[in-house]
């Protein structure tokens, strides 16, 4: 099973995306949120991300997909995951759409490559049809 980590500058965004994705994952996918600074202010913290990733890493997940918002989320996540013991992918996908497509793939037992690809495909997802 693939675990997912949601990184955002905002704790509310990270927890909201986690909530939304969990609803789609039917309690089958482990998802953690790492949003904002440890004091709750806006920003990204390698420490907060590291703590959430370590917690996920201690579960029986086979790999980790990280979805993030923008800017410093990338640098903070790269730093936080240095030396992470399990395979992981930091996704370039849009946060909300990527998380939802990834959790659907993860819930049916997709491996890290498939889960990451499902998130990545949302880059060209069309919401408005016709």
């Amino acid at each position, binding site marked *: 099973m693939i675990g997912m980590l949601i990184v955002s*500058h905002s704790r509310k965004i990270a927890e909201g995306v986690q909530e939304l994705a969990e609803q789609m994952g039917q309690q089958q996918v482990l998802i953690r949120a790492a949003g904002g*600074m*440890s004091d709750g*202010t*806006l*920003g*990204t*913290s*390698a*420490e907060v991300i590291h703590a959430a990733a370590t917690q996920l890493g201690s579960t029986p997940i086979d790999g980790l997909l990280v979805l993030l918002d*923008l*800017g*410093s989320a990338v*640098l*903070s996540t*790269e*730093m936080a995951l240095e030396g992470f013991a399990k395979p992981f992918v930091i996704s370039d996908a849009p946060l909300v759409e990527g998380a939802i497509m990834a959790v659907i793939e993860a819930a049916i037992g997709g491996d890290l490559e498939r889960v990451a690809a499902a998130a990545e495909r949302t880059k060209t997802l069309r919401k408005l049809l016709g």
Partner: protein
Amino acid sequence: MRITTDYVIQFLDTVAARIKEQRAYLTELDSPIGDADHGTNLDRGFSAVVAKLPTVADKDIGTILKTTGMTLVSTVGGSSGPLYGTAFLRAGTVLSDRYDLADEDLVAALEAALAGIMMRGKAQPGEKTMIDTLAPAIDALKSARAGGADLVTAVREATVAAELGMQATIPMLATKGRASYLGERSIGHQDPGATSAYLMITVLGEVVEQIAAKASS
């Protein structure tokens, strides 16, 4: 020149004070091309460093710098946290177990810090970042040293190069960080990271001048 632990602490305290003074200016620079938090973020980070320094003041310079780096990583909140954090961690690694430094140690630590920033940010000179201040400053420092200049003169030359490097970010197009989302609109603004890096180089220059003045008095 002999740079002792006390001067390293003084450097960090003075950087923190300078950033606090310039907080509004750094944030103002970050408003048109970023998320208007560079001054606030760095002030929060360096205030946390100042609070932490007494716990490591009797330790080696490597430990002091590594503690500074880790504190910045966990408290800054923006990209400058992992970037300056990595810089201080790398410099601290070079200076492990050292309680005083010679001139060449300072150069080696600065080079390691710059290499850390370039690695972390996957960035090169010319991309409108702190690297545009630091790379020419370190080049100037090294070339002055190679030409036989003493450390005070070499750091003065580095400070001039840092200022020119910082100003050279104004016409640059940002390709890294949030400013890059603005594309062409990032042109015409001085980079906040290049500016905070310049503040740090000027403080380094002041501390080196003080050490030299004390040695000759």
